[in-house]
């Protein structure tokens, strides 16, 4: 039996998987930016005492799993999510789903992902892909950041589902339980969009402590100014390279997810004709552009073209400026009078 599943390419893996699973289940209005915004995907956090691959732990998006969970919940769609301690049980459950012609999302590690180029394989365990069909001992995989689908052997898929290290996926599998023919009305979409923006406002403005949200961006900017003397030029360069990878690498849509969010606010305007949504979309585009300018500055440092303390100060100031921009934008969003 051949699955009718249709591959949809996306910018970010989790909003892509969410969008693709919902669209394939018949939710026609869904788009990737809507999934990202309703799932409150935009975030910033820098955890200074944690190291990832020997560099700083920085994230530009919310904790893995949140986008899918919150998007489905806001739309009133029940979610099934399972983790496994046994590899056999994990495979048996997956095979059972596929036998019922149900496409499922899987959290995986990218280190052993066979279709990724070697340069992109780090021990990063919060990647998401869809498995939609099995033929003999091969699975067909729809990875939303790739143009086309891929095929993986049982061994290969098991290996990435049971990747080890931080955020180990433990075979995690998830899918929306949508009855055939279910549709989502505009009132539900409007409510979900509103809810997504409100939660995102909270995450960016009101999480206590200095390391998360817009405060975290400013905190990182101030830290960066001390990296040159504190870490030495080589290590500071590697740290900045890691920052840029988290911000721009595959799965971000560019500009540290700020462009996807700007696209979301435009789409939100189609549901809620409130001028602030359009205006703040333009503001997030500017923030995304600024993130990109900062990446160019960072590249100057890690490629060795730049390296003075003044260059690090410029880099840090970019982030302070972005923090102010995003604080203003989210404050405007927080004051919207919803109809």
């Amino acid at each position, binding site marked *: 039996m051949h699955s009718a599943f249709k591959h949809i*390419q*996306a*910018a970010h893996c989790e909003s892509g998987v969410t969008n693709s699973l919902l669209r394939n289940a018949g939710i026609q209005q869904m788009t990737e*930016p809507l999934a990202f915004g309703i799932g409150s995907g935009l975030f910033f956090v820098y955890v200074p005492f944690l190291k990832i*691959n*020997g560099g700083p732990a920085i994230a530009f998006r919310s904790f893995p799993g949140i986008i899918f969970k919150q998007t489905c919940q806001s739309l009133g769609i029940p979610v099934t999510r399972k983790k496994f301690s046994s590899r056999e049980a994990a495979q048996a459950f997956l095979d059972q789903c596929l036998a019922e012609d149900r496409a499922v999302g899987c959290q995986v590690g990218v280190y*052993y992902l066979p*279709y*990724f*180029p*070697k*340069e*992109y394989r*780090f*021990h990063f365990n919060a990647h998401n892909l869809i498995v939609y069909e099995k033929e003999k001992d091969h699975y067909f995989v729809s990875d939303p*950041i*790739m*143009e*086309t689908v891929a095929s993986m052997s049982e061994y290969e898929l098991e290996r990435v589902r049971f990747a*080890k*290290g931080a955020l*180990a996926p433990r075979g995690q599998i998830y899918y929306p339980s949508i009855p055939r023919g279910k549709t989502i009305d505009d009132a539900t979409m409007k409510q979900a969009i509103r809810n997504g923006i409100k939660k995102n406002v909270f995450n960016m403005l009101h999480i206590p402590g200095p390391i998360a949200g817009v405060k975290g961006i400013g905190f990182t900017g101030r830290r960066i100014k001390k990296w040159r003397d504190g870490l030495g030029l080589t290590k500071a*360069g*590697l740290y900045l*390279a*890691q920052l*840029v*990878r988290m911000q*721009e*690498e*595959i799965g971000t*849509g*560019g*500009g540290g997810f700020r*462009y*996807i969010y*700007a*696209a979301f606010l*435009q*789409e939100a305007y189609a549901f809620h004709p409130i001028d602030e949504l359009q205006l703040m*979309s*333009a503001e997030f*585009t500017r923030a*995304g*552009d600024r993130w*990109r300018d900062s*990446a*160019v500055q*960072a*590249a100057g440092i*890690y*490629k060795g073209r730049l390296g003075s303390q003044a260059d690090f100060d410029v880099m840090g100031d970019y982030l302070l400026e972005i923090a102010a921009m995003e604080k203003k934008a989210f404050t405007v969003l927080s004051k919207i009078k919803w109809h």
Partner: protein
Amino acid sequence: MKKEDVPQDLSSLGKITTEICYATDESGKYTTQQSRGWDVKIDALDVTWENVEKRMKEATEKMEKGEVSPLLYFMEKNVMDLAILSAYTGFWKWRIRRHLKPGVFGKLSDKALRKYAEVFNSTVEELKTMNIHA
């Protein structure tokens, strides 16, 4: 970012697939644009892997001086620290630390070596001789 400004610098990923970027069209409306890569990102990956290679070279030098076993080289090559290697192999960290000593490594059982070889996408032969193909 405007659609026409989306960078198209061919990256190693760009040879396999383009990526989707969100960008604006002439009227300021968001749309998607395929990208083949961006030099700033390519450089970020390059310096990261150059650093890995530097660490592999240092591991080789230490090994030649008889200070460590080949295990360190393979750990660096696979960007694994003790915690990750321990999680993949199931060996306790203190055991792996012992295996980093040349004498202890030389007496490792084939079973243990096979375990390491699998995790490193390598062979027992390569682990022992450091003759790496690929």
